[in-house]
């Protein structure tokens, strides 16, 4: 397990995203999801950029981070709010994250794995192309992800 540290300057970026967000719960939830993913597998969770940096998206935010293997520490250096392009609304960002959490729990049972091992970012990414995601029930989300699996 790695320790996740957020750069001091990142706080103001998270705070500004949080203040502007349509759903503050979604921002906090994304922070926790990023923390969980980076603690467990920082290399696997993100995409390599350059200069020892990686990035990971967890709507509505994107984190750019680095890994210190010797200290088993991950440091987040930059946070950006990410939205759907062309000013369109992002249904996932507005979606009640608790529904995704519960669906993730159901998927954990189905896969025979604990919820902590199922990356909620992955579930979110799988359903993000559904325009009607915010209308889906927990069971419908589970079905969609099962179909995609």
């Amino acid at each position, binding site marked *: 397990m790695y320790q996740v540290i*957020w750069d001091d300057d990142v706080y103001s970026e998270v705070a500004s995203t*949080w203040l502007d967000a349509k759903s503050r719960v979604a921002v906090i939830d994304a922070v926790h999801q990023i923390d969980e993913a980076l603690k467990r597998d920082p290399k696997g969770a993100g*995409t390599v*950029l*350059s*200069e020892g940096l990686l990035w990971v*998206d967890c709507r509505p935010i994107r984190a*750019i981070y680095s890994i210190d293997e010797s200290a088993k520490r991950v440091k987040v250096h930059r946070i950006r709010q990410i939205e759907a392009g062309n000013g*369109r609304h992002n249904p996932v960002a507005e979606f009640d994250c608790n529904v995704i959490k519960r669906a993730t729990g159901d998927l954990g049972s189905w896969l025979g794995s604990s919820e902590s091992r199922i990356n909620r970012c992955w579930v979110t990414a799988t359903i*993000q192309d559904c325009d009607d995601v915010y209308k889906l029930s927990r069971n419908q989300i589970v079905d969609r992800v099962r179909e995609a699996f």
Partner: protein
Amino acid sequence: MVQIVAPDDLARQLEGTEGTVELVDANGNRLGTLTRPPSAEDVRIASERRAADRSGMTTEELVNRLNAAESR
């Protein structure tokens, strides 16, 4: 993975975007979504902060600060 070369005008349009971009055809039919990588500016800022190696906070401290700010 299938690779498609974007015409210059589309490539220029994409340069000004961030995060997820939805691509549609002329009739508005959805072609798919594209995830844009971080901008050069974001990478530069992240690199500078990494080099500065300032102190930081844990996730719990970060969330506590946000919650405290909300209650003020």
